[in-house]
């Protein structure tokens, strides 16, 4: 299935049901949700308007409802209608159509980080800095804030992140006496070792259909392929030294079938996850609760470790997924919209709910350091405090990593160039990288952007 990656991608949030949430989580939540939380947030605001106002919010699911309820309680004149208008690509398609028609555009929208520049480029998002959003900037983890803002303009308030880590099957590593890799060099040695020990298994699957996962790895390798260079002007280099380093590493591993290139988020891949075909999943902070849902039978066997490093002893991270809520340029209530967006992520009660009940990795410094959150022991991971590990790597993500202003094309052309070469098990992936770069640059120019290729 060669669909565009963001059709069923990146789980930008880690949502779990109350059913799946363990007893530990429930009690933790009860502690963290004081009913008097309201005291923290009652600040003077224009949303105490005399006339009742109604806003529409497009969510990927109905999970925004509790946060909306908390907000409405403090602002009796505001009604926010939560509508699940579609998830992922379906939502973006609808939004684009509505923007084109100039009607039916919601006030508040659920959006992944990689898509934000694309909607910004069509001037569809509200610049929240005009309504005071910069005042909350220093409450956020710096790299996270940089995902939704540039040059003092703010286009969304981050809600969840996806900092990367290596999720692995401790039992498999133990069974074959393989050390947990801390560098990529060691990872390659381990991968070969595992193949010899278990011909049916792979150390990892590097999905040939997953643009976002590939970009996460590129980010960790030090690549910054998209650099804004002024109005409608970009520097694009998908063929940089860092990108070449990345594909030179994976190419031979793929060609020798030391690692697999199965498409991810497919039935076969889910089966591989629960059957032990893949001993690691290079993934992100939303992955643990996702994994619990699809591979229940492997509960207790998994652990989370810091990503293998390019240089021994370094600590460089990456990010896959993550997202924000944004406000549309056409909203009639920009001030209230801004306040609500700030509220969702920074209000202690709402932030705790997001982190503990909806399993979204916190974006604010305070919540990401909250003891209740960090001390959660997850039985699926053998009682490991996985949040603590993800919090540890939170500051290792590159602050300067930006997304392109035409993300859908970059993602789909990845599939037809690098993705195809990976799927064909080519050892030398550099020509495909060059082809991807050319396709993206010429597309950018056709779209009217000034594109440099430094």
């Amino acid at each position, binding site marked *: 299935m060669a669909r565009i990656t963001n059709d069923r991608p990146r789980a930008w949030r880690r949502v779990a049901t109350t059913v799946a949430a363990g007893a530990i989580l429930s009690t933790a939540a009860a502690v963290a949700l004081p009913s008097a939380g309201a005291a923290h947030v009652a600040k003077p605001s224009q949303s105490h308007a005399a006339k009742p106002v109604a806003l529409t919010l497009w969510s990927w699911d109905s999970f925004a409802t509790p946060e909306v309820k908390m907000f409405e309680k403090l602002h009796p004149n505001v009604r926010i209608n939560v509508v699940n*208008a579609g998830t992922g690509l379906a939502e973006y398609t609808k939004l684009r159509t509505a923007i084109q028609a100039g009607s039916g555009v919601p006030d508040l929208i659920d959006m992944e980080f990689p898509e934000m520049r694309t909607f910004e480029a069509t001037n569809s998002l509200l610049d929240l800095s005009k309504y005071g959003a910069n005042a909350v900037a220093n409450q956020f983890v710096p790299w996270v804030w940089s995902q939704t803002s540039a040059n003092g303009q703010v286009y969304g308030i981050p809600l969840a992140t996806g900092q990367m880590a290596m999720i692995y099957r401790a039992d498999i590593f133990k069974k074959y006496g393989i050390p947990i890799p801390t560098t990529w060099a060691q990872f390659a040695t381990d991968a070969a070792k595992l193949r010899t020990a278990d011909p049916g298994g792979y150390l990892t699957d590097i999905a040939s259909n997953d643009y976002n996962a590939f970009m996460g790895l590129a980010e960790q390798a030090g690549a910054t392929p998209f650099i804004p260079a002024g109005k409608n002007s970009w520097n694009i280099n998908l063929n940089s030294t860092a990108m070449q380093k990345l594909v030179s590493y994976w190419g031979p591993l793929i060609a020798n079938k030391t690692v697999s290139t199965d498409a991810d988020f497919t039935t076969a891949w889910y089966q591989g996850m629960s059957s032990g075909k893949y001993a690691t999943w290079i993934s992100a902070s939303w992955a643990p609760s996702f994994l619990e849902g699809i591979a229940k039978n492997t509960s207790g066997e998994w652990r989370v470790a810091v990503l293998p490093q390019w240089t021994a002893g370094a600590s460089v991270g990456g990010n896959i997924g993550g997202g924000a809520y944004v406000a549309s340029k056409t909203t009639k209530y920009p001030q209230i919209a801004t306040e609500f967006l700030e509220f969702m992520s920074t209000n202690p009660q709402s932030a705790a709910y997001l982190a503990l009940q909806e399993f979204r990795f916190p974006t604010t410094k305070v919540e990401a350091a909250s003891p209740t959150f960090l001390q959660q022991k997850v039985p699926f991971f053998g009682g490991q405090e996985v949040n603590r590990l993800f919090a540890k790597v939170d500051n290792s993500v590159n602050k300067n990593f930006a997304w392109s202003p035409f993300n859908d094309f970059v993602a789909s052309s990845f599939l037809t160039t690098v993705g195809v070469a990976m799927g064909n098990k080519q050892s030398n992936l550099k020509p495909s990288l060059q082809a991807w770069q050319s396709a993206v640059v010429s597309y950018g120019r056709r779209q009217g952007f000034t594109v440099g290729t430094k």
Partner: protein
Amino acid sequence: MTLIGRAERRLFGHLGISHHAVERRHGRRPSNVLTLIMLVMLVYFALPLFWLAVSSTKSVTQLFHSFGLWFSSGGFNLVSNVHEVFTYDGGVYVSWLGNTALYAVVSASGAALLAAAGGYGFAKFNFPGKSVLFAMVLGSIMVPFTALAVPTYLLLSKIGLVNTRWAIIIPSLLSPFGLYLMRVYAAGAVPDALIEAARLDGAGEFRIFRSIGFRLVAPGFVTVLLLSLVATWNNYFLPLIMLNNPRLFPVTVGLADWNSQATTGSGSQALYNIVITGSLLSIIPLIVAFLFLQRYWRNGLSLGSVTG
């Protein structure tokens, strides 16, 4: 059923094919090679359906931890899956099924009626611009419906019908292919002499259509009805962009939404089993419609080829 027989006789008579010839063709001895090819095709088409049926008996864990084409030993969960499909998210699946049925039945009846009237008109009347208009109808068959979805959205948003049931029903009422089919059918099935006779007896044009023309083209009408029924039942892109309110979704868009919710991180919501079971349930009405009405289908599918 007599209608069909009559129209068929008339049609074949009109074309100079004797009933005898038709029967002889049906009775030809089957070829082994063709039978084999058909068997291969049968497996090819039936296997996904079989997988769907088998998978709908599995829980999420069983889905990803057992052989795909056979039942899992870990328990038979069809009943609990069905229960979950109908109760998840406040029973929204029931609304989706109802919406799909409503959109499909209303659109298909409307489309078939309009096509019958239009086709009859094209076949039996001469008026200025007839060939230009018909060329436009033929031309619009070539334009895929999906390509028109966004322009249709822009039009409907101007008159405030987006995110209402009308946004699905109105565009689905037009079936250029149905109109073409009905013109061909009406040309063969309604003798000019009969219309002349009715006119001499003093019947108005509309009455002639209603009491004579429509009855004679009824088999073609049923074919167009079924074609549009299936097209609307399976329509995905139009409702996807037209509707924002999940309560108005048809089952196609709803299931796709559940599926993307499951793959975007709410895995522990265990939605895969209900997506699969929901898919199985959603095709049952169509299968039933096929089984009961397949002779109309066969008739309709051969229409164009015989008279075209």
